[in-house]
Each structure stands twice: as structure tokens, then as C-alpha cells.
């Protein structure tokens, strides 16, 4: 098997995640989809690392994880406070920009 398949898998997961972001209304699920996209990227990075024979890709993946963690922390905090004020976790309810 050609390791390029990992990249195809990564692309597939990324696309699924992105579509999920677009069609789900629950903020938590949206967040999960974002995590999915990040993980898909990480897989690509790791594959690239293997492809090029150096560890830089893994380092980037590592950083991605750290950033994802930070993002999840803040994001979930936002969801919680949003839920407190609106009693809903739907992203469509947070539409003050609406006409």
C-alpha cells in the first residue's frame, strides 16, 4: 500500500469535518467537527513527516494539538457562558448580526 492513502484519508476526514461544521447547529458538535478537521490535518502532517524523513511535521502536529487544546478550553467556556445566557447551545441562536 502506498502511504499516500493516509493523505486521502486525511482529506476525507477533513471534508467530513468541514461539512459537519456547516450543517450542525449544536455548538458542541460544531466544535467536535473542528477537532475532527484538526486531527485530519495532524494525520497529514504526520504522513508528511514520514514522507520527508524528518520530524518537523510531527512537531507541527504537536503544536496543533496544543493549540487545539487551548482552543477547546476557550471555546467550551464560550459555549457554557452562551448557554447560561440563552439556554441554548445552538449557533443559530447567536445571530445578533441578523437584520
Amino acid at each position, binding site marked *: 500500500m502506498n502511504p499516500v492513502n493516509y493523505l486521502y484519508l486525511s482529506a476525507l476526514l477533513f471534508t467530513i469535518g468541514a461539512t459537519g461544521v*456547516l450543517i450542525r447547529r449544536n455548538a458542541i458538535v460544531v466544535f467536535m467537527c473542528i477537532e475532527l478537521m484538526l486531527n485530519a490535518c495532524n494525520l497529514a502532517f504526520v504522513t508528511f513527516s514520514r514522507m520527508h524523513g524528518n520530524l518537523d511535521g510531527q512537531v507541527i502536529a504537536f503544536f496543533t494539538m496544543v493549540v487545539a487544546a487551548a482552543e477547546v478550553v476557550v471555546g467550551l467556556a464560550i459555549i457554557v457562558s452562551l448557554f447560561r445566557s440563552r439556554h441554548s447551545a445552538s449557533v443559530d441562536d447567536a*445571530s*445578533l*448580526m*441578523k*437584520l
Partner: protein
Amino acid sequence: MENLIALLVAAPLLGAVVLLCGGRRLDAVGHWIGTALSSASFVIGVVLFTDLLGKNAEHRTLMQHLWTWVPVEGFQADVTFRLDQLSMTFVLLITGVGSLIHLYSVGYMEHDERRRRFFGYLNLFLAAMLILVLADNYLLLYVGWEGVGLASYLLIGFWQHKPSAATAAKKAFLVNRVGDMGLSIAIMLMFTTFGTFAFGPVLSHVGDASEGKLTGIALMLLLAACGKSAQVPLQSWLGDAMEGPTPVSALIHAATMVTAGVYLIVRSGAIFNAAPDAQLVVTVVGAVTLLFGAIVGCAKDDIKKALAGSTMSQIGYMVLAAGLGPIGYVFAIMHLVTHGFFKAGLFLGAGSVMHGMNDEVDMRKYGGLRKYMPVTFITFGLGYLAIIGFPGLSGFFSKDKIIEAAFAKGGTEGWILGGAALLGAAITAFYMTRVMLMTFFGEKRWQPDENGHEPHPHESPRTMTIPMIVLAFGSVFAGGIFGIGDRFLHWLEPITGHEEGNSPVSALTVTLATMVVLVVGVGIAWAQYGRRPVPAVAPRGSLLTRAARRDLLQDDFNHVVLVRGGEHLTRSLVYVDHTLVDGVVNGTAASMGGLSGRLRKLQNGYARSYAVSMFGGAAILVAATLLMRAV
């Protein structure tokens, strides 16, 4: 000596500036300042005149270059004055009659609180008129040309609180502007033809230019002359201009400004001589106006308007003469000068009558005034005799020459023009006799006005009668002085040139014919107005009379076609500007608004919606990148 020329203009100009900017302080002495400065100009004029007389005929042209006015690449206009026999004649007429009328106005305007300003305007007029006749190029002439138009505007509208006066002033200026347009086009044509518009180079190189261009220039000059000299078809303003104070009518609308057109034509004689077609048009205009003015003059009951019709007619004579070319130039100017005397005298007389009659102008409310104002009667009477061409008086010499010259044109044209001039003489005799009879003879016809004030006709004060007397002298003797021994001819010939026409009829025949028509005209008038009492209310009159009362319907034509048409045009243009030109823009704005209103719906506030656009955008970017790679 040359350096004095500028002073001619400077004196009245100074007067105008001082009087108009001086403020109330000068109210007490303003009129004397104005009179003094205009007289000063006259004195300078006389000094220059004696100087000129002392020189040979060839050296009688003085030039004074003051400064370069408009220096632009290929275009040079200078402020240069030129004093030759022609302009000298005008200078004397303008400053002389002008000073007399200043003096007259001191009395006439005594009770007007804005007398200072009146004198300021008069001085302004003198300055502008002098610039007009002294200018050495057409552009400077144009300055004077419009300057007199402005002064005329200010003076016609002097009693601005009367809407009729304000309207008349505006009308005069506008009609004149149409003429001015002709003058400016003429100057432009000259510039393209000759590269300059100074008298000397233009007039001496006429021979090198094509006749078509010269005809164009000449016709445009004629248009200008028509505007200023109230010739058909631009004559309509003169009657209304009588709204101004009477001294103004005398000075500007009889003696001086309205003759500027004749000056222009005579001055540009070389151009007209080289454009026979244009000359023919000039004579036709002159002949038509001559009859037109005379007919209008017959029908008017307003003494000043009757005189205005007469003025139009007399200037028609001058234009006719000027159109005849070298045969007539000298006589045009001669008639202009004598006319300046007697018409100014007549107007001042009319003013004196009005002064005594509580500013009543309707001749049907006069009658028998000779007993009440003898000086006015005599001076007016002498003016009357002069204008109808009574043998020995001024008008006889000048008008007779013009009729002769018209016949001398030769051919059918000569017969037609001469006939028209003769007919005009008859009508002149008729309407002037009518004025005379209705005003000074017969029974008194005035009544108390609505306030119960009955006019108490009385002779005018000395300041008014003296100018009338002086002008009466001019009316009687000027023609003789000029005409006997052809003095005037010799004086002007170097400038205008002269040639004797070959008249099909002898001079004596013409004179006799003139006498006959004169008697006929007077006789008809006496039969109609002298033998039986004049009705105080105008009878309905024939169709021609009614048309003549309305200035032969020319004003109605103007009103319907130009005023109404213009109003409709501007109103519809305002509408077009608002709905169409602005509408296109506003429509674009509105459709933009509509479009954005629709696009705004894309901004639905849902984060997911924005995310789709973002994602789509990213996809397109990736696609674009890949495509670029592939290509």
C-alpha cells in the same frame, strides 16, 4: 495734445466714481460735481477741436496709447484712443449736449432724493460713450458699447420702484445684448480674418480679405448697430426705454447712445464698402425702420413715446444714409449731429411740459400749453421745425441730403429708397405736427387727478430753460453752419471718404419734392388735429392705428415667441434636468439600493451561512491555484 484725450474720458469717469462711492455726504453738491466734470470734458473737447482745426486735414488723427490691455499669444488688445474728425464730432456732440442735459437735470431732478446717483450714472454714461467713440480697436469700442448699455440700463431703471421701469431697463439691456452678440462675432471674424481688430490694420487691409468674410463681418456689425440704434428688428426696447427720466431720454435715447450704431457703420465704412450685399441690407433696414418708427410715432399718445418713434425713424434715415456708402456717410453723421440738437431739444421740451404737468405724459390731457410755458413752446417749436425739415433749419440741410443721396444710389433701389425717404419725410411732418398741435394748441384738456390735484402748468426753472434755448439755437443754425459751403463734408471727408452719386433727379427737384410732402404732411395733421378738438380719450382708430399703438405688434410677437416660448423652454428644461439627467443618477442610486437590499439578505446573521461562503471561497481559491498550476 494727444495726452489730453484720456482726460476726456477720465473727467466723467472720475465723476462717476466719486458720485457713486461718495455716499450721502455728497448729496448736496453731487449734481454740481457731475455737471462740472462733464463740462470739463466738453472744454477739453473744444481745446482739442481747435487744435485739430489748426492742423492739415492729413494730420488730424491723434493717437494716445495708454496701456496694453489683453496681451495673449497672437492676440493683442490695447487701450489706445484715437481722435480724428469723426470721433471729434462725436466728442463735441456728446460732451456738449451731455453738459447741457446735466445742467437741465439739476432742475429736473431737484426733488429726487437719489439725484446724486443720477448724476453719477450720467457721468458714467458720458465716460462709456466717449470710450466708444474714441476707441482705436473694436474690442475697446465694445467696452464703451456695453458700458453705454449699462448706463442706459441703470438710467432707464432709475425709478426702480416702478416695475415697468425695471422691466424696461432689463428689456433694453437684453435686446442690446443680442446686438452685442453681433459685435462680438464680428470681432471674432475680424480676428480670424486679419489677426487683429484695431481700426488701422483692419480697415486698411480690407481689400485682401474675401468678400464672403467681409459680408459676414458687415452683417454682424449691422446686427450690433440694430441693437444699439433701435433698428428693426431690434427696435422694441426704445419705446419702453422712455420709462427713464426725461433727460435720459433726451441724452441717451435720442441724441447720443442710439446713434452709436450709425457711428459703428460709418467707422467701419471700408468694410461695408467692400461688401455691397451687406450695404443693401443696411439700406433696407434703415428704410424699413424709418417708416416703421414714423408710423409708430403717429399713433402714440404718450409724448415721449411719440418722440421715441420719431427717434427710431430719424436714425433710420441715418442708417439708410450710412448704407449708401461713401455717398451717404457724411450726411448720416451730419444728420446725426443736427438730430442730436433738435431731438434733445424736443425731449427736453417734453420733459419741461411733463415737469409742469405733474409728470403727465398723455398728450390727450395737454392742450393749449403755449400760453403757460412760452419758452418751452418756442424752443420746442424750433425743434419741431428743424425735424420736419423746414427750409433753412438744421433738419432741412441734413435730411434733404440724405433723400438726395438715396435717389443717387441709382437704379430701382435708388427710386425705392428715395421714395421711402420721401414718404418718411411726409409722415414725419404729420406726426410732429400732431405732437405740436395736441400739446401746445387747442383747448386745455387736463383734469384733476384722483387726489383732486389739478395740474398748474408753469414754466420750468432757469436751469432747465437755458439748455433748451441753447439746443434750440443748435436746431436752427447747426444745419446751416454745416451744410452751407459743404463745411461738414470737407471736415469729415478724409475719414469717411465721399463721392457724389449720379442722381436720376436733380437736387432741386428733390428739395421741391420734399417741400411738397412736407406741406402735405402738415396739412393732413392740421386737418385732423388742428381744425377740430382732440378727444381726451383716444378713439378706437383703424386697424393700422391700433397696430401702430402696439408698436406694429412687434412686441406681441416677441412676447409670444421669445418670452412665452423661452419660459416654456426653460421650464421644460428644468423638468428635464430634474427628472431625466438627475433621474438617471438617482435611478442608478435607487437600483443600487434595491440590489443591495436584495444582497443584504445574504447577510442573514447566521454564522454557519458565513462559514459556507468562507468554505466556498476557500474551495474556489484552491481550484484557482490548481488551475494556475495546470496552466
